[in-house]
């Protein structure tokens, strides 16, 4: 009985004329875990962007006088083996890691969506061609290819953008496949026939009718991709093939732990990037989960 009344109240307070996206937004705002994660991610982004205003330490200058200092005093989180302030590098590293993550995600989603929606909408020969190309790209050994391309292109272009380009080029395949499968299912609906019969161009049918209806999947996929790519960047940085060593990133900072001495005795050098990386990835995944629930009409969380 109690349940019935609360449901009735909920029904009443629900404003009329809500688009499916407005409903999803409402549901997302009620999801505590996703909201906490959003705030955390937002905080990380803000702190990283405002790094120059928060700390004035130099991020690249080697300082022999203050090597491997423990946390405390002038250096909140201590210094690394070259005497650079860990806290400062953590903030600046966040900038790079997030920049790589966001840019790559944008490119990956863009390219994957374009390829997937064209393949799904037209079907037949176009579909076959594009999907075989996708399979081809998906079959590249990711790490090896990134390392080789990065080495060849290094010095010719700014190292950071080489990395972004290479990661993006190799990662769009999964998104293309998912978008294609969603479009294939969605285009069987009669409203697509209706859109064609009222004289919409194929491009308009895709952009105005198909994509808005698979957008929820794309958004969820974007968050997953975002998390994956930040991890990929860190993995490459850890191996020493990520962004150039002169630019701090979370992955670069982690590579210091390759030395047993640092790993065992100087946790303040590698723990901060490891922790912040883990929590960031977790919160991105929670946001993704929350979005998935919000867009699912059957969930009522």
């Amino acid at each position, binding site marked *: 009985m109690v349940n019935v009344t609360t449901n009735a109240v909920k029904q009443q307070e629900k404003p*009329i004329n*809500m688009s*499916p996206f407005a409903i999803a937004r409402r549901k997302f705002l009620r999801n505590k875990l996703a909201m906490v994660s959003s705030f955390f991610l937002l905080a990380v982004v803000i702190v990283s962007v405002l790094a120059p205003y928060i700390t004035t330490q130099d991020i690249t200058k080697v300082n022999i006088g203050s090597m491997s200092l423990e946390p405390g005093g002038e250096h909140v989180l201590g210094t690394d083996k070259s005497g650079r302030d860990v806290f400062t590098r953590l903030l600046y590293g966040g900038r790079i890691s997030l920049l790589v993550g966001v840019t790559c995600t944008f490119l990956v989603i863009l390219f994957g969506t374009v390829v997937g929606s064209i393949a799904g909408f037209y079907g037949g020969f176009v579909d076959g061609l594009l999907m075989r190309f996708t399979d081809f790209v998906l079959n590249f050994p990711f790490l090896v290819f990134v390392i080789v391309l990065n080495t060849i292109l290094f010095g010719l272009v700014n190292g950071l953008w080489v990395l972004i380009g290479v990661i993006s080029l190799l990662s769009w395949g999964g998104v293309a496949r998912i978008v294609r499968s969603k479009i294939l299912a969605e285009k069987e*609906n009669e*409203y697509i026939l*209706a859109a064609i*019969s009222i*004289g919409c161009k194929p491009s308009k049918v895709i952009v105005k009718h198909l994509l*808005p*209806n698979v957008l929820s999947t794309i958004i969820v996929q974007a968050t997953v991709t975002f998390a994956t790519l930040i991890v990929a960047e860190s993995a490459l940085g850890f191996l020493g093939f990520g962004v150039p060593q002169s630019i701090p990133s979370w992955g670069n900072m982690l590579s210091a732990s390759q030395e047993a001495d640092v790993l065992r005795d100087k946790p303040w050098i590698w723990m901060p990037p490891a922790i912040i990386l883990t929590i960031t990835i977790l919160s991105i995944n929670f946001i993704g989960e929350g979005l998935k629930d919000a867009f699912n009409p059957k969930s009522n969380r």
Partner: protein
Amino acid sequence: MNKVETKKGSVQEKGLEKETLLDIQNLKTYYPVKGGFLKRTVAHVKAVDDLSFQIKKGETLGLVGESGCGKSTTGRTILRLLKPTEGKILFEGKDITNISGSQLRKARKDFQMVFQDPYASLNPTQSVGDIVSEPLKNFKKMSKNELKEEVLDLLSRVGLPPEAYHKYGHEFSGGQRQRIGIARALALKPKLIIADEPVSALDVSVQSQVLNLLKELQGEFDLTYLFIAHDLSVVKHMSDRIGVMYLGNLVEIATNESLYAEPLHPYTQALISAIPETDPSKRKNRIVLQGDVPSPQNPPSGCPFHTRCPMAKEECSKIKPALKEVKPGHHVACILY
């Protein structure tokens, strides 16, 4: 549905004098069946197999037949939402069989469709205003205010309140959603509307409302309908002439009165005997057909109906009868006549 008054007599007389709007000649639509390792075409589903008929301006042609006989495929092929395999579609004397791209898009202005499923035929991410104004945006340059005025006018014509403008499809009932679909089809003031089982997904109480709306609009906008349905009483209420389809073929086509009074084809006779009678004292002979509809992938030789026909003769399996005018305006494809 039968409670609704009919007034087709006058429309039909007008229709007969008028010129032909749509002329279908030997239309065939086959769906390829892919199979094997290289996805080669191994067979065809003959959804529409050699169909010819005409629709005159202002008339309503009903198309009946059981599920899977190719009614919807016929409708979609005529609108060029599917590519015909063979044959010709002449719209106002213009051949639209093979046009494509922007030419086809321009031609679409004159023929629109009302879809079967009111739940799947409205884009869930668009508001009603967007849905109804979209065809106008595609074809006409109008200012925002003109557009909105036009849409509100269309909404009122199909019996929806102006508040509907900002709402989304999921906020309406099936009948109301079908009205939105009708408003969208009307927006361009088309000459031909193909209604593909427009009421089969609706409650019986709502069906008659939507049917009457379609009839009213026909007079108001001078529309021609190709009305596809499997409900015989619905077709009887709506149509001036009726075509009966079986397995992708047109087996009989006649005026409404003539078909119901004197069905000639054995299949039509069986169909009409299946209409439930409201008066229980009026027992009639129910013709029950044996067996199932053969697969359209491998239709029987000769007359497509001979495998189930109670009057089949030996030559039925050899000769495929063509449509023959047996009485004025009454065509039937059967060797008995």
